[in-house]
């Protein structure tokens, strides 16, 4: 009786999982083994791994995602650290979260306004006599905008792990003779690694498949796997190839999750 009731409560969740997570992934995998006329083939994978274009695209995606993650981490960690120390920490966090409520495309268009030939930034550069420059459609502008968009997702988990850190650990480190810098590097940073890993997952994976900004800001100079998938599904109508790249992306996500998982350390480490 009771068990039946519990089971009936879980039905919506299983339905959701089945229809919107498991089924699409299965369809994607099946699709990736089909050619243009729908017959089974391994050609898509063969093409992917033998074509210089696809491999370069993959490398580009990973490379740019890596750089974007690095930039966001470099900016976010000190920012989260300072914010966690401020009096109204939750208010500052709200300010960081606010921009994420604005649509991604709107933010991209806002940057076009800033970076264009007659935009605010170039006006300023002209004013101080060093402009104007070509800012749009460069790798730099792509990196800036991508990092800007991803920063809140990096700050949030790091901020949370820092806020949850018991202050007595910091006192203990100082008490044992560590300067504030040593306390940061030897105690605070290692103990907030959980937040850093969560932040990397939240930034690296979505950045791998970014495609709108690559076109609007990067001017398709940076072609990532996300762009390739869009092209295959909407332009060339080669769903098989698009699915194959999708599967590759899912594998890459799994790999990232695996590399940044929480590892329980084991065994002797002293006497190193």
């Amino acid at each position, binding site marked *: 009786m009771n068990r039946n009731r519990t089971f009936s409560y879980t039905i919506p969740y299983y339905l959701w999982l089945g229809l919107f997570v498991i089924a699409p992934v299965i369809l994607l995998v099946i699709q990736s083994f089909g050619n243009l006329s729908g017959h089974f083939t391994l050609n898509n994978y063969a093409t992917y791994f033998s074509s210089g274009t696809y491999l370069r695209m993959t490398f580009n995606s990973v490379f740019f995602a890596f750089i974007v993650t690095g930039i966001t981490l470099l900016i976010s960690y000190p920012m989260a650290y300072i914010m966690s120390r401020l009096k109204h920490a939750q208010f500052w966090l709200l300010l960081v979260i606010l921009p994420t409520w604005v649509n991604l495309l709107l933010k991209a268009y806002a940057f076009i306004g800033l970076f264009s030939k007659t935009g605010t930034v170039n006006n300023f550069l002209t004013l101080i006599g060093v402009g104007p420059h070509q800012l749009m459609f460069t790798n730099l502008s792509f990196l800036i905008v991508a990092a800007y968009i991803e920063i809140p997702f990096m700050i949030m988990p790091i901020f949370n792990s820092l806020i949850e850190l*018991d202050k*007595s*650990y910091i*006192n*203990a*480190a*100082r*008490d*044992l*003779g*560590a*300067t504030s810098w*040593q306390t940061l590097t*030897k*105690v605070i940073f*290692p*103990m907030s*690694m959980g937040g850093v890993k969560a932040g990397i997952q939240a930034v690296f994976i979505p950045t791998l498949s970014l495609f709108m900004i690559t076109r609007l800001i990067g001017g398709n100079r940076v072609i990532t796997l996300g762009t390739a998938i869009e092209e295959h599904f909407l332009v060339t109508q080669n769903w098989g190839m698009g699915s194959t790249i999708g599967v590759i992306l899912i594998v890459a996500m799994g790999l990232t999750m695996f590399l940044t998982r929480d590892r329980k*350390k084991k*065994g*002797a*480490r*002293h*006497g190193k």
Partner: protein
Amino acid sequence: MAQPIIEFKNVAKQYDDNIVLKSVDLEIEAGKFYTLLGPSGSGKTTILRLIAGFLEATSGDILFEGQRINDLPPEKRRVNTVFQNYALFPNMNVFDNVAFGMSIKGKKKSDIKAKVAEMLTLVKLKGYEDREISELSGGQQQRVAIARALANDPEVLLLDEPLSALDYKLRKDMQYELREIQKRLGITFIFVTHDQEEALAMSDWIFVTNEGEIVQNGTPVDIYDAPINHFVADFIGESNILSGVMRQDYLVSFAGKEFENVDGGMRPNEPVEVVLRPEDLDLVSVDDGKLVVTIDYQSFRGDYYEITAHDDDQNYWKIQATNPAVTGERRGLFFDPEDIHIMRLDESEEDFDARMEEYEDSEEDVQHES
């Protein structure tokens, strides 16, 4: 007297309008076991944090071996702390925790290894170097925390209610061990607790704190036998506190009768408070008693019976007896003149000490006469 290792001169601490410490003076001598005893919020932990350097005094001077250390950061002070929640670094194992202070200072690896082994032996955790903190019990974590603090060879070890999370038996064992370690190393321990039993059992000297002030300091015996005021008498041990009047030196009136006692130095007919400890009271026959009481209630406490009774003046008495009593029975209550302790209302600690000094000699004379 040798120079005190730590000295507070008019040290006060306040947050905005909230005063947590009002002008505290204290002196700590090297090599002794001190306890700061008081209820929560009394300022005892604040004093400890001021010594450690985690808090800055609002005013006043904190001296370490005669040097002002108010502005010295915690890492430069020659004191170490054992934290209430231990604060062991969960990302390091036992060895790295104990070695933390030494590796920060860049000591030689071989020296560190030897010192860690020595410290773990001291706290009876020999061979635990490779354990993770999460694998240890509460009592073991406590020992690691002590070893980690002592590994830095502090002049003074600060202990912030370190035993409060342990069960009764383990707490008792740790009390003996801490006292043992303190005697062996000969360094100064400053122990913070709200547990009066713990304070009485371990300390050479106790500071009783209440509402941001040190209300009394002395040896455990002094504080137990001669509490300065109602608060201390009530907080330290069980007590019967009655209001009375000091008729003249060595004669006090309470519960409707006059009694010979051993205190003096007060105005004639000064209103006072009278303290009688439950274990100093004896139940005797009605004829032998100094007061007659009716037994209300008794409860068995294992090693004694706690008996509640009331006298004809409707004062309630707590009595500790080894033999059970009969509820509703009328019994005599007997106590000696020296069991009566008199407290003046609002007496300062200096006046109290001076009066005690003066009447301590005469106290012995009275005892000889009786």
